């Protein structure tokens, strides 16, 4: 009977280190992006910019994430004079996609709502994650496209997981991946973040985001915001389901 005490000790120490480091990393991230005090006051983000569809093809977009007075998300996208939209508010949502000639908004499915809900947090899920009912594990360091990153895993009560790749130098979140367990399938989304800028409010956010697949291949073009407003006035009617035309 041989017991490897050394590996036991190392693993126990590593476990302790992991437990401390996850919070340390989160704290460093919020310090690097404006400080926890400022982030505590963030309840709405509104971005306006363009989606780069291809060479010379820029489509205007708007994106809103709000947590007060209600929890919701809103997105729109305009091309050829038509605007597609979707919004999620509390426990319901809708999609309006006129590009094929349709003029009715469809209700979001429960699966979509679940997926969008994970995103409906302008502070980010990591902020006060324990109060929000999440757990976070530190998964160690990794090489993300040549950059050294900390890797964190946030788990919700439903068992959904969100992975954060945090630059060890800047402490910015460079990539986020989500693994959402739906009834009959598992959904995965990955997004790269860049063009970090300090907003007028004082928090730093990425002005550019790029969807990628599991292997890191770009999915479509980037979304580049030219303006991100923190806690600006939000027109609540945007979240109302459009009437049929």
């Amino acid at each position, binding site marked *: 009977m041989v017991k490897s005490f050394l*590996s036991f000790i190392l693993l126990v120490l590593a476990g302790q280190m992991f437990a401390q480091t996850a919070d340390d990393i989160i704290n460093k991230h919020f310090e690097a992006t404006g400080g926890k005090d400022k982030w505590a006051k963030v309840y709405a*983000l509104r971005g306006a910019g363009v989606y780069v569809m291809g060479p010379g093809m820029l489509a205007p977009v708007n994106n809103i994430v709000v947590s007060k007075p209600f929890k919701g998300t809103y997105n729109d996208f305009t091309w050829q004079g*038509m605007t597609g939209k979707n919004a999620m508010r509390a426990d319901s949502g809708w999609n309006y996609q006129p590009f094929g*000639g349709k*003029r009715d908004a469809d209700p979001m499915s429960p699966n979509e709502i679940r997926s969008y809900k994970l995103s409906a947090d302008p502070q980010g899920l990591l902020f006060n994650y324990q109060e929000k009912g999440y757990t976070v594990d530190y998964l160690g360091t990794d090489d993300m496209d040549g950059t050294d990153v900390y890797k964190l895993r946030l788990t919700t009560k439903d068992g959904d997981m969100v992975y954060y790749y945090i630059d060890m130098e800047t402490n910015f979140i460079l990539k986020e991946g*989500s693994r959402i367990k739906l009834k009959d399938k598992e959904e995965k989304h990955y997004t790269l973040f*860049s063009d970090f800028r300090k907003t007028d409010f004082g928090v730093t956010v990425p*002005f550019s985001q790029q969807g990628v697949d599991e292997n890191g291949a770009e999915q479509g073009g980037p979304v580049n915001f030219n303006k991100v407003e923190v806690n600006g006035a939000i027109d609540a009617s945007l979240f109302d389901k459009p009437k049929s035309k």
Partner: protein
Amino acid sequence: MNKILCATLLMAICLSGFAQKAKTKGSTSPEAKDVKLTSASLGKIEARHIGPAVTGGRITSIDGVNADPRILYIGTAGGGVWKTTNGGADFKPVFDKYCQSIGSVAIDQTNPDVVWAGTGESNMRNTVSIGNGIYKTTDGGENWVIMGLPNSEHISKVIIHPKDPNTVFVAVPGKLWSNSADRGLYKTTDGGKTWDKILFANDSTGCSDFAINPKNPDIMYATMWQFRRKPYAFNSGGPGCAIMKSTDGGKTWRKIHKGIAADTIGRAAIAISPSSPDNMVAIAESKKTSLYISSDGGENWKEQSADDNVCARPFYFSCVVVDPIDAKRVYRPAFEFSYSEDGGYSWVRAQNDQGWLHSDMHALWINPKNTSQMYVGTDGGVYMSVDRGNNWIYLNSLPVAQLYHVEVDNQNPYYVYCGLQDNGSWRAPSQAPGGIHNADWVNIGGGDGFWVQPDGEDNNIVYSEYQGGHITRLAIKSNDGQDVQPKAGEGDSKLRYNWNTPIVRSPTNKKRLYMGAQFLYKTEDRGITWAKISPDLTTNDPAKLKQEESGGLTNDNTSAENHCTIFNIAESPVDEKMIWVGTDDGNLQVTQDGGKTWTNTSNNYKLCGVPTQTWVTSIEPSRYDKNVVYVTFDNHMYGDMKTYVAKSADMGKTWKLLSSDVFKGYANKIREDVVSKDLLFLGTEMGLYTSIDGGNNWVQMKAHIPDCAMVRDLVIQPQTNDLVVATHGRGILIVDDISPLRKITGPLLNSAVAVISARPVPLSVGHGGGNWPFAGYTGPNATEDARIMYYLKERINSGDVKVEIYDEKGTFLVDLPGTKRKGINVITWNMRTKPPRVAQGGSKLDFASQIGPMVAEGKYKVKVLVNGKEADDNIELVPDTRSSATEKEKEEDRESLMRTFKMQEDLANLMDSVIAEEKMIKEFKDQSPVVKQYYDSLEIIRAELVPVKEGRTVIFVDEEKMRDRISDIYAGVAFYQGAPTASQVQGLNKLQRDMNTTSQKLDERKKTFRPKVKAEIGKGGKNVPY
């Protein structure tokens, strides 16, 4: 900002379906330190995995989620762990950062996100690879952590305690090639933090099988196996072997052999009936391997009659399984698939109406919710049965083929040729319409496949072999093959061909082919006559030539242990008289007179630290200097897993060991670049590496390449500069266009930004052809867009990266969003400029707004702008040699395209006029009949130009208006490079007339109505700006 927008946009875009020498001018960062090449520097120089999956590789372990049997994990011999979430419709690799040889996978059924993977398969054949411990994931394979047993090398089984998921048992046969105390049965009770070795026999005996009583988990069984391989022999069996039982959770053990006839056994497989655990089955290797049944928990065994399959090759087939519910139903996947319906008393073989079930099986998982459904792992992939194993369906989307060698030809697109472990020889194009489908692979040889050589002069002829040097020359189109193996001549001793016999083309003479037994042979007439051009070049050591005695208790002589043979041959590209030969017993011989005289350099290379008797796994005589040669050596069969790569600059007289801290795994192949003398590639059993300075420094190539890929062969296709990689478990990987690595020198590495010119790009609309969703795995094509490559010293976190394209006159054409990663970035340009502005105001999207006109052939400047710094270089677009279009036809195409482009924009302007006119009067239309009449007449015009029907609820009811008709021709012209058809031209003429008519109509209506409308609106005190 929030990430959800991306998903929304992608959904929207999908609706249309049409979305489509380094010049280091960039500034050097003032604070620059000397940047060294790292893996990160290589950036997006990444591989694509083209398969094959038409046939698989060896599967070592299968486990499924009992509560959701669509989720399965597959352990493979050389391709890592794969996961399916749809019952096998497709698979994804989930273990790419770790050792690729898998012994066992086990799912924690109480939390199926927890999965254990024991590395190092335990089917101890000659070519088995090694592992480095046991791993665990807690999130369904997204992340893994090594949990220990790093020196185990081989793990045969991982079993999770049925009532306590933190208690796990690991059966470790241990090292195959050397003695080791790191073997036996291990147990953890804390989820893998600590391990106890609870059963151990001796340094040459490990634990090969384990079973636990699901109803009383204190009762457990283990089989101990004494075994050892040498390069030239295998031994299975010995006094350490035993079937053991514990009734106290593994604290104490006793041998349970009552009823087992043989005094000495070898490898034993056991199975317990989950529904009636006292009932057990065992297959114990001995001089007469037998099947035993016990009905009292192994206390007494009764030998039963069994056929050859049940008792076949016990060292290799160690799987026996009892149905989860029916205690009488027993399965024996072995050479073939046998099953019993009476608890093992009698056996029948699978019916296989469907066709062939690949032989050689090692794993079986039965769906406990539906025991008719099961998955078997074979040497040729995974099969599924829905009728209790009678018939099987091949799951053809798992690309885990185990290559020994790969070759390419010079066709456009070029073909790849490969030989696979237990799966014959194949070829496929490197590009095919819609990707490289299973149907694109053509079988060109049977048995175990190894070296394959396309004929130097005739693309219809190929040479392949099966084990032991059985070479065939095949005419592919007629499938007409002839055995052309060199035979022993007068006075020759018996020829000894290696399991993996070299067949090598001459780099200087297209007619010449070499092949080696213990002698070297040469043919220049396609194998009809072979000239023996050497004496025995091996050590010819009699102690290593007793293959008939190999196997231990069970004699097993398949040519796998053939030894004292030639293992590699290489003719110098700069001197056809200079030929190098490496053997499997350490000789490295060279001739400088075409074979008349030979010099053995083995005593020389030993001086640089390479051990004696090593296998010479590859020889690369330099194409730049005949004095220079690179060689890889493999000593793993003597228990030494180090990486040995050596270089001689004086024809083998003295050697320098090329070493690096980044190397892992024994060395299999070294390849010198075909353009840059300092660029080298190295394949080891655990990764792909490159050096840009002649071997002094190395970095690992990781982009889409498993960190521990078993790289067995490398070849560079000279026309495309593609590096084609043969892996022993992940099929063929192609790194498209490695030419940037020739340019990534010191000055470039220190640039903040630099554009790297790539190979010329054939100007093509693409050869996509049918993208029909064929069943099975589809290997991706290389992009046919222009690849734009640029280097960034650091990741760009602030600001933007913009890529601008200019024509030769310096006219700006288009800009592209740049990626921002550290190292080499690769983006694609579809060689089109900005699409036309199309008419708005319709009720649906028009796809022409996403298709820009293609540019002409020629040079274009690529400028990359990053936060005030910029760099540029040219990219050359050249004629597509696969296109039959003449220059004149291409010109006609372009003229038609630009004409149609202009029509789109004219129509957009016309539509703008209509919309503007409507906008001015819309608020008054219900106040005046005249205004309404004018508005309605404008609406009629609008409806001629664009679809206006709103509220569509189905996708196939559509309107086709002038915009759609122009777009139809526009797309037709834009996606063909030859002259437009007469019909297209006719259609355009008609559309131009129609547009003119509508335009005139609008003018007339304006003329008629504007004064009246102005007057009408004026009555109300309002005005319109006419």
